[in-house]
């Protein structure tokens, strides 16, 4: 059975760098950094005081006023990127053949925290408004997107922390391959929250300044928020100019530790190899890797080893981490970084690592892009997403033949 080719026809992106894909991309290639002061909640007790907070007003989606009152910050962020992706794809027919696969992280936590704080202070008899809990379950963002845009095909929410949205994109693509859907809106959204802020600080995994992926002096992550969505379509149905080819994906588990990656990156490397095999692409033909690149000492060393093991010691692929510009957007990271990877492939520019000054020798000889975007003819690109629980997901995107 021949598998249908899948094209990326729509991209939607919202991060601290801007409200849409063009604004984000233009800031990315110019080497801007969206990591700065955070005032969404009180960060003064913590070592980490900077993050990539979205500081412009979030647009209100086309839902009734009653629905709008129930939306969490994460829902608003997700709905914005979902709408952009659908518009970018030329708004193809939305019916029961249009799937929706969404990755979630903290989701509606920021809003639920407001309720729970009242619960803790007032006791269980609290009269705090229930609407702050309406998006507490991780699938809420997907349900709102389905409702707002009338997507009636297969629907799922992946909740594997920082690899959620990358896995959602893979699962969505499989629906097209197996004939369960013709088109899929896939990606993910996430918002900053007190729980994740306190949690990563408690783990001492946060850089006091801006995160510096692959830098010798890197000290941890910088948290961020955002959303990234793609529209994938079966090739024979595509009516617009595609941005890239979706090649394949791979998912594995470290089965090693809840928060630390396996130091040799063995399963991460297996995920990249599985994605390349799924796409039918030789490791030597990969020109760009959008790394998970969190900026923690453990991740970046292990990931460099995983990349070299999967692509070969002689690989000439350029590597960068978008987290140096938009922070670690947790449940959204896979979608945000897939969107950036698609634009990099389409436009022939490898995005930079903007905060890194001296590359850690332990991460060499991976070719890390510094400063600004580097013009590069990208035939094939890999986007990595790894997560708590030892989850690894790699996606492969390729240039559309001219």
């Amino acid at each position: 059975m021949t598998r249908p080719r899948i094209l990326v026809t729509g991209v939607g992106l919202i991060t601290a760098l801007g409200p849409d894909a063009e604004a984000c991309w233009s800031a990315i290639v110019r080497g801007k950094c969206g990591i700065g002061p955070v005032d969404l909640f009180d960060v003064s007790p913590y070592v980490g005081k900077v993050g990539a907070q979205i500081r412009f007003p979030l647009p209100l989606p086309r839902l009734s006023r009653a629905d709008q009152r129930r939306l969490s910050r994460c829902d608003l962020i997700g709905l914005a990127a979902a709408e952009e992706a659908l518009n970018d794809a030329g708004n193809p027919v939305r019916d029961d053949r249009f799937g929706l696969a969404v990755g979630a992280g903290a989701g509606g936590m920021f809003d639920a925290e407001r309720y729970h704080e009242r619960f803790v202070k007032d006791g269980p008899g609290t009269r705090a408004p229930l609407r702050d809990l309406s998006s507490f379950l991780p699938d809420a963002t997907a349900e709102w997107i389905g409702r707002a845009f009338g997507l009636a095909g297969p629907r799922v929410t992946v909740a594997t922390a920082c690899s959620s949205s990358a896995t959602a994109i893979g699962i969505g693509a499989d629906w097209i391959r197996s004939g369960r859907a013709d088109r899929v809106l896939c990606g993910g959204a996430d918002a900053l929250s007190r729980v994740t802020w306190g949690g990563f600080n408690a783990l001492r995994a946060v850089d006091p300044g801006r995160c510096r992926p692959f830098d010798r002096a890197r000290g941890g992550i910088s948290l961020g928020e955002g959303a990234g969505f793609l529209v994938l379509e079966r090739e024979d149905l595509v009516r617009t100019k595609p941005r890239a080819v979706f090649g394949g994906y791979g998912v594995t588990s470290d089965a090693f530790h809840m928060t630390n990656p396996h130091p040799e990156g063995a399963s991460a490397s297996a995920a990249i190899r599985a994605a390349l095999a799924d796409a039918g692409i030789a490791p030597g033909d990969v020109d760009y890797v959008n790394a998970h690149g969190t900026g923690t000492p453990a991740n970046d060393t292990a990931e460099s080893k995983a990349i070299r093991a999967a692509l070969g010691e002689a690989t000439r692929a350029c590597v960068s981490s978008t987290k140096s510009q938009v922070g670690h957007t947790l449940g959204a990271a896979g979608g945000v970084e897939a969107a950036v990877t698609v634009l990099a492939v389409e436009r022939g520019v490898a995005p930079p690592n903007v905060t890194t000054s001296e590359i850690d020798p332990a991460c060499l000889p991976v070719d890390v892009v510094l400063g600004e975007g580097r013009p590069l003819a990208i035939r094939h690109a890999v986007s990595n997403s790894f997560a708590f629980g030892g989850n690894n997901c790699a996606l492969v995107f390729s240039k559309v033949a001219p």
Partner: protein
Amino acid sequence: MTRIVATGAGVLASPGVGREEFWRGILAGGRGPSKVAGWTLRPGAPELVFQVPEFDTKTWIAPAAIRRLDRTGIFAIVAAKLALADARLDLPLHRVAIVVGAGGCGVTTTTGFHRRLVETAGTDPNPMAFPNTVPNAAAGQLAIATGITGFNTTLVQTGASGEEALVLAADLLAQGRCDAAVAGGIDELSSMMHHALHRLGGLSRTACRPFDRAADGTMLAEDAGLIVLERLGDAKKRGARALAELAGYGRASSPARPLAYGPAAAAASAIESALARAGVAASDVAWVNSAANGVSDARCAAAIRAALPRAAVSSVAGSCGEGLAIGGVRAAASVCAVAEATIPPVANLREPAFELDLVREARPLKGAVVQHGAGTGGVDLAIVWRSHA
């Protein structure tokens, strides 16, 4: 089309621990709910929930490992080890997938973590607790405990989370992304979920009585139901016993709000699409393993009347309660029903509220099973199970 079979099941639910004890418990109508300990409840809130009977965690997990686990992690590991032993699975660990449907997994740990943030104004967050706040902690802990390095993911689809995991596992097997999958659902009891559902008016104070005139809400449960799925050819090759075949599935998505169900017609359409994909005629369906939970009864009944008016109907909610990922336990009941050729009864059914062939006492199963999972937010899933022979 790739044929998929269930070769093992691991269950922790109120009626019993392990496939056989669980099934005996289901046939006997379950052990009933019990008072929850250690929660400060809102005045007037129900105290009854479905809890898993005590079991010796040390049989499955080394004491040193237990302190890193919360209850969902323990449930995942015990259920998976029961399922893997039941299937006598001995495959390369990188070819085994783990697909967990998580209802409210991690909510207890998350609210505990946040409570301490609130009480200490952020000055003393608990680093030990944070890793278990993510919904995929159970699946991660399960991988660590078993060494399974294959495809690993966690899905959330409120009340259909368990079914969502099973159908993804079936897809992964059909795509060749794994050679076996441990898939199903895991639910924990959390005071926050209980509090929220009580405030939304969804909980009964007395009993969970699906399809009964006196049904006045549901009751929350903790549970885990994990099924080992394999391609039929592979199972035969290794001489494994197939308990049941997952013959097909269907789904429907409607534009419902989070926490609201879609229309009954969507549930009927999911069932019809599952039958079409499985190549099973409505007249060959002997039992509907319904999602009715004491809240969604009218909707579930309407869907069955539309799609399978002549099938016998019961719901495990009367003996197991409702967890958002109870679909894993529901699947265990489907698999047991096929393997034992028996339809289990609805517990607590006194006065049927619907014109359906509701099962009051266990009876022989002669035909296929349709399992329905209903998520709020508008997702319905139906799975067709039958004997593989």
